[in-house]
């Protein structure tokens, strides 16, 4: 046995081997994502060529198709039109089509943003209050209440979807932004309470006690001392709630149709002529995935905590 190094340090060779395998896995696992992003910059023809084209002439056709509705026109009609004014009109004309108006994508995307931000704000705010109470005070049946809050996450969404559907229809909340914000808030609450309780447990009690000795009331101490101290945890929790609302599909597809539908149920329905319009779907997917990827990089230190409801901390 080589005694010059600590027995715990893996040897240079085994470390290199491990790094190589990990890099190979990383490359393979990122191919599907890279591929869909690449497809968004292909032309419709290039996206359905075989063998799949790795090198291709980039085109913005997918993005143009994503944001517009188009209709095919006879050549005589196209010739009779004034020349196209913009580059995207020209692109559409070259496919013998004209733009008939904007598509629904922007509406669906902003629905995702409105509902996501609304639900995130509410669940983090309510979650922070509840988490503080659970963290600092003697609450009767504390463990049972905490478990009850967690268990609401175990329901299959479909199981409660029908009653919620009926309830929302009666209350006039069906297919509204407010209805979806309330629903996503509730789904996120369990995560928010559990994560934030963990973060608040880590803030020493002495901080607020000192503030209270200085004349703060308990409420003031909470808002002016504890909340600022918990800011990192609150931000991490907020991003997790945002990602959930952003990605949610089951409730969105079952409970919304026209007014409050978010992007995930919409993207699969982007259809071109003679089948799915892959560059446009790729473009929608890319625009939809970018925020989540940025969030993931921002979150990397808290990922583990978030995905385990705070059960595992680094």
């Amino acid at each position, binding site marked *: 046995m080589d005694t010059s190094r600590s027995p715990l340090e893996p040897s240079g060779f085994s*470390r290199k081997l*491990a*790094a190589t395998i*990990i890099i190979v896995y*990383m490359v393979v*696992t990122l*191919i*599907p*994502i890279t591929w*869909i992003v690449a497809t968004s910059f292909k032309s419709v023809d290039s996206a359905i060529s075989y063998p*799949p084209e790795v090198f291709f002439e980039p085109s913005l056709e997918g993005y143009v198709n994503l944001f517009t509705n188009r209709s095919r026109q006879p050549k005589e009609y196209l010739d009779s039109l004034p020349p196209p004014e913009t580059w995207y009109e020209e692109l559409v004309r070259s496919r013998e089509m004209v733009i008939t108006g904007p598509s629904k994508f922007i509406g669906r995307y902003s629905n995702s943003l409105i509902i996501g931000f609304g639900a995130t704000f509410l669940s983090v705010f309510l979650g922070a*209050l509840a988490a503080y*109470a*659970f963290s*600092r*005070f*003697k*609450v009767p049946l504390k463990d049972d209440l905490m478990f009850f809050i967690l268990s*609401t996450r175990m329901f*299959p969404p*479909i*199981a*409660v979807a*029908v*009653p*919620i*559907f*009926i*309830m929302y229809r009666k209350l006039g909340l069906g297919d509204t932004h407010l209805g979806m914000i*309330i629903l996503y*808030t*509730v789904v996120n*609450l369990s995560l928010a309470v559990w994560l934030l309780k963990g973060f608040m447990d880590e803030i020493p009690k002495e901080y607020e006690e000192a503030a*209270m000795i200085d004349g*703060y*009331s308990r*409420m*003031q101490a909470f808002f002016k001392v504890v909340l600022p101290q918990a800011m990192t945890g609150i931000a991490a929790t907020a991003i997790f709630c945002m*990602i959930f609302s*952003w*990605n949610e*599909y089951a409730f969105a*597809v*079952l409970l919304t149709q026209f007014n409050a539908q978010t992007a*995930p149920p919409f*993207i699969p329905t982007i259809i071109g002529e003679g089948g*799915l319009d892959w560059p446009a*779907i*790729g473009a929608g*997917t890319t625009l939809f995935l970018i925020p*989540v*990827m940025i*969030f993931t990089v921002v979150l*990397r230190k808290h*990922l*583990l905590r978030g995905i*385990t409801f705070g*059960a*595992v901390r*680094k």
Partner: protein
Amino acid sequence: MKSAVKNFKGLSDKAIAWIFITPTLILLLAINIYPLIYAIRMSFTNFYANKIGREPKFVGLKNYQKILGDEEIWEKMQITAHFVCWTLLLQALIGLGLALLLNRKFKGNELLTTLIVLPMMLSPAVVGVFWTYLYNPQVGLFNYVVNFFYDFGVFDMIGSSTLAPWSIVIVDTWMWTPFTMLICLAGLRSIPNYLYEAAEVDRASKWQQFIHITLPSVLPFLLLALLFRGIENFKMFDLVVELTSGGPGSATELASINLKREAFEKWKTGYSSAFAVILFVTIFGFGNVYVKVMNKIKER
């Protein structure tokens, strides 16, 4: 100390505790528990949610009898079990393997971890959509790569009833292996160095160290990861709906997808509520037993 704090100005601690907790509890009761109780009540009736005005009739346990005696439902449960078992097995093995490799601290470790984790942060429905493109028998990249290594000719991962159950296993494993990996990695990093140092002193081989130190320390973490994945995959809906929509025929019709068809296409509210209750009880029961076993292993 406690009594000293009590006499400060403002509301009493007890009042604040309830003011802070009540909104959360009310929301959960209104949007989670009320619907659940409603579903349980409906499960004893022949209610159809699309027929407004028709009084639902109490039918006792008929819905439950029908479901538990229905061979088709058992088929769906088998399809679900196939999906859950294979995804858990693959994600446990690959995830633990990756964690062991990542634990040999090399340069760029953190960056690689973040990149590998990306798939699991994406929207499952959107992932399902773009995998239908990768699986396309004529132009799909997946099919091209497979044929590059061994020429199978034209094959359809989603359209063939023998391959479709595996197509969903592959995508779920691709997406969620980082989850087990991350949690196992946390387990590995929690093992104190002195355990290995002591083992070296005792001249234990690397293999013995792995079996007697590494594995037992990581096991509770791995089991926790599998609990989360097990629950999620048992109620799996979004990914598979967009990938195969339960087909071909009903080859990949998992329990949740079947439930959606009964509840939102046939509008058999009473019947589907009973099925929902059965699913919920199954998840809850399995979960409880699993947690008990997990705690026993932890205590050892």
